[in-house]
Structure formats: C-alpha cells, structure tokens
C-alpha cells in the first residue's frame, strides 16, 4: 500500500509544470559544471545516479520488462541488509533492474558488490562506482554494511550469469560464502532475492571460448540474435520480470567472531541458496510464460 502511494507521488512529480522542470534541469546543470555535489568515499554520486543513470534505466524497468517488485516489506527501511540474488542473463541487466527496484520502490540506494573485471574496464568501472557499487571484497562489504547500507550480491558470479539457456533458473554454486561472513560480522539480516525474467533476455545457446580467452572475458555468448544481427543483437528480449524479496534471515543471534567458523558459514550459505532456489521455482510458476502470447 505504501509503495503504491510512493509511486503515486512519483507520478505527480512527473506532472510538474514545464517551468519547474526546466528550473530543476538548470539547477542540476549548474551543480554539475561547478562540481558542487557530494560523492561518498566509494565514489557514489547520488545526484548523477538519480537524475541520469537511473533515469536511463527506468523505461527498461517499467515498460520493456514490466518489472513487478514483491515482498518489499522484507527489506529493512533504514538499517543495513544484505540482498542475495540469483544472477542470470548473459549481461548483468538483472543487477541494473534490482538497483532500480530497490531505489524506486524502497527509496534506498543499492550498493552492489561487483566482479574485478568490471573495475578493470575503463568507463564501466567508474560508472559502477558512481551508481554506488564497489568491488566484491570483504573490506568493502563490511564497511558498507556497518554504515547501514543495503548491499546486494550475486554469489553465483560468472557461473550464474554466463550459464547456458538450457540451465535456466538452476542456481549455480554460491562462491565461498564470503557474503555470509560479512553479514554475520555486521549482524545484518540476509534478504534472499529471486529474480525471474532475466534468464530470457539473451538466451545463451552457444559460446566462443577461444575468442573469449583472447579478449580476457569469462565467456563470449552466442544468442539467437547475437552476433548474427550485430549491435541489434544486443537488444534484450522483452521478457516479463518479477523480483521478489524473501523473508530476512537473521544473523544477529551469532557473535561477530562466529564469522570465522567455516561450518556455520557453509550451513548458512546453503540455507540461503536453497531459499533462493525455492522462491525462484515458485515465482517462475507464478509468472507463467516469459513472453505473454508465446509459451516457452
């Protein structure tokens, strides 16, 4: 109900007079050209994120994938939390959509922990920092959680996002459970998150491993449209998306030192993984076909 109202005010905001919007635009431009805006120690630039980066993603979120966010009450309103989601889709569009969901529906910035590859690349690494994300390492994760931020992580990594279409919605191995240890150290809840829809945007039906190795990439996908249609093949298929935040798994009953107990970390990691897989299966049934008139 609250979220619904949140959206309404958002739409009302869209009906501001042209004059007001113009004034806002110039205020934004003036801030940008004079450098009078704040960036946090991770390089997060909320001004740019809200007004430019997210704005570019919103049409994709609302109209292309028609994302529905569920279980919004499961994410704490103003304290730290670790969102653990499944990863899929060949390109990390799911990360971007999750970011829009958390920002627009929950009104909180999402701080994702990304692969080394992202931060090695020019442009991409610094855009990722400006939209609030950072490198997946224990130091950064601990720091963000201690500050009470909502941190997001995809423990499957490349194994998840780069898996073939035939293995869709089957969770891969969950790394080494470093994310669980971080949550225990910070005493924040783990919010299991299931994302349905991303698997169908670039169905990966093949791979060119030799060329991928040459380019230093984890894989080079072949999809029904790529590389056959060239840049047009980069257009994601308009699948229907659901993002569900599951019931939080508490970690505050453990002492911070227990983060060093590998058995506990393994068990919790498995528990989180099973929860995500279960929610994923249920959510997939609930959504039905990915492309409405066609049954997949």
């Amino acid at each position, binding site marked *: 109900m609250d979220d619904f109202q949140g959206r309404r005010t958002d739409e009302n905001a869209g009906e501001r007079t042209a004059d007001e919007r*113009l004034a806002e635009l*110039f205020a934004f431009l*003036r801030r940008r050209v*004079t*450098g009078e805006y704040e*960036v946090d120690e991770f390089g997060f630039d909320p001004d740019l994120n809200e007004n430019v980066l997210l704005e570019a993603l919103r049409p994709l979120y609302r109209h292309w994938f028609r994302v529905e966010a569920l279980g919004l009450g499961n994410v704490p309103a103003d304290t730290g939390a670790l969102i653990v989601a499944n990863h899929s889709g060949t390109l990390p569009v799911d990360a971007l959509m999750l970011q829009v969901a958390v920002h627009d529906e929950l009104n909180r910035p999402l701080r994702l922990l990304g692969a080394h590859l992202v931060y090695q690349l020019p442009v991409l690494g610094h855009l990722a920092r400006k939209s609030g994300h950072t490198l997946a390492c224990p130091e950064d994760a601990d*720091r963000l959680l201690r500050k009470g931020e909502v941190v997001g992580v995809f423990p499957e990594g490349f194994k998840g996002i780069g898996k073939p279409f035939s293995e869709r919605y089957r969770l891969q191995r969950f790394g080494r459970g470093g994310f669980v240890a971080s949550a225990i150290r910070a005493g924040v809840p783990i919010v299991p998150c299931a994302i349905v829809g991303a698997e169908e945007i670039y169905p990966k039906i093949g791979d060119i491993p030799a060329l991928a190795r040459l380019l230093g990439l984890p894989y080079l996908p072949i999809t029904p449209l790529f590389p056959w249609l060239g840049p047009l093949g980069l257009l994601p298929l308009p699948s229907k998306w659901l993002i569900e935040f599951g019931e939080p798994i508490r970690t505050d009953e453990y002492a911070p030192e227990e983060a060093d107990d590998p058995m506990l970390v393994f068990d919790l990691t498995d528990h989180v993984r099973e929860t995500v897989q279960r929610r994923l299966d249920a959510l997939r049934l609930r959504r039905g076909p990915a492309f409405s008139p066609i049954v997949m």
Partner: protein
Amino acid sequence: MNTHTPGEASMTRTVLVTGVSGHIGARVALALAADPEIDRVIGVDTAPPPSPAGEDGAVLGRTEFVRVALRSPDLVKVIRDADVDTVVHLSLVSGPGGSGRAGGSGGGRPAMKEHNVIGTMQLLAACQRSATVRRVVVRSTTAVYGSSPHAPAVFTEDTEPVEGSHSGFARDATELETYVRGFARRRPDVTTTTLRFATLMGPSVESPLTSYFSQPVLPTVLGFDPRLQFVHEDDAVEVLCRTARADHPGVFNVAGDGVLLLSQCARRTGRPVIPMPSPAFRFVSGLARGARLVDFSPEQLALMSHGRAVDTTRLAAELGWRPKYSTAAAFDDFLRSRGGPGDLPRALVDWLADVVRPIS
C-alpha cells in the same frame, strides 16, 4: 642551558625536525618553536631554508638550523649533544627533482632513494643509540597503499600495503615504514608515530598535483575518474605538532573528510578537460615532465586512473580531533589562492537558462 624543573623532566624539551627546509618542515618547526613548553627546536636539512633576504628568523622563528645530511655521522652528534627527546622526521621527498623542495637537490632517482631510505635508516640508528629520545614522529604517505582496481575502495591502517606493485616514492615510503617498525620493535620504550598523509593541498603547497591543477587545460585518462583525497597544509602541520607534543603511538592515516573525483576537481577549477587514452596520457605527462610543467611519477599516473581513499577514524579517535578542512574545503582553499575557479561554465549555464526561459 636546560632549565628543567624537576617535576617536568619527562616533558618535551628539545625537538629535532628533519626536512626543515621544506614547506611543511619549516611550518612545523615554527609552530613548535612558538610553544613555551619546548625549550629548543633544532632543524636539520641538506640545504638551508629558503629565507627571505637573510632574515631566517622570519622563516623558522627561534629554531636553530643545522645543515647536515641525514646519513652523515654529524647527525648522531647533534642528537647526542643536544639531548634531543623528540624527533620529527619529515624529510621524505616525493620526486627526484625535489619538486619545489630545497632539499632534493637533483641527482635523480638514486639520490632520492639514498635520501629517503638510507637517510631514515641512519636517523633511526642514531635514535636507537640515544638515551634521551622518547618520541619519534615519522611522515609517510597514503601512497604506500598503491592505486589499483583490485584493492578495497577505502584503506584502513590495517590494510596490508601491496608489495612490489609500485615504484619510486611509494616504495621508499614502504621501506621507510619497515625501518620504523623495526625501530619500534627494538625500542619499545620510545613512542613511535607513523603518519600516512594523503595528498597535501593548500595555498603554499608545491607538488605535482598542485602544478597539474594550475595548468590551463587538464588532461585526464579517458574512461577513468579517480577518487582523490586531500589534507590541508594547516591540518598536516597541526597533526604533526600534536603528535610531537604528546604520545600517540601507532600508524595513522591523515586525510580531510570525504573525497573528490578528479572530474569534480576539474569542474571546480573551471578549466577544460581533455580526456585521452591511457598511453596518450602517459606520453603527455612525459612531455610535461620534460618541459618541467608537471612532474608526475609512475604511482601518480596510477593514481590518476584508479584513485585512492583512506579511512581516518583511527586518527580522530586517538587525537580527539578532526581535520578542519574537508577534502573539498582544502581544494577550494587552494583554488582561492590561485585566483579562484574560472567562472565561464557557470556563466554559460546561467546565460542558457536566461535564453531558454522566455521561450518556454
């Protein structure tokens, strides 16, 4: 000469400041000399302080200047004869040319290493022998953490400095810290403070980065927008004086609050930016180095791509004090001293706003 009253025997009496001809060294010596609780301040450096027309009293106050190289045996004598009890070691130089410092009299990289590393070794050896030295404060740099896309975004003092991945200045500082740790282990009765300073910024700072920001156009590395952190010169002097006056053992990061992105700094200067691919940037900075415009070292080139930020909570907790200038305030203060930011971009937006408004 020493007028100790018995109860105050353990209090700071005689302070030795190395690198006193440098800007920060001179200011620290001056501030300590103005402190009535300190009897003597002895400044040493390889070159005399840049005194305006011979009145060196104006530069260093009542500091006694001794011209001596750190690696000469005379230094041992100075420490012994003067009953030095506090050593403030500031003579770390960042470039072979000395970049604005009177101390680094050319001589290239070997001379710089000799000065930074061997000099520190000799100084610490002298301190180890001394029966009077109670406190050692050493200036280091946050460059010891390196700049890399694979490192955590924010470095704490416990982050292991990456070995081998950097050269020049950063390696000197890393080695220097190794010797300081060794010294602290061998003389646990001496309070040892290592201060890792972020890039200094302020009206009178002469560094590769301040000369970079004074250029009419600012080349940047295409696709990279590093996080930079500055510490204002006033705050740097204050931290050094506080740690010279009282015991604050340990390693501390020193930086102004917050970060600025390079793009943000450039916008604040109001100067145009020319993004260029990394090899071209290296080439241009090589040219600038040859033309003696901007003297970027290899680790500064890495900084211009990957940036660096450090955590300063340990310092704040230890001193019960925070730097007065945030990173942004330090940079703005520097800009004001160089004639303020260019106003063209702001004026352009205002003009555009005025033009567009009547139309809509």
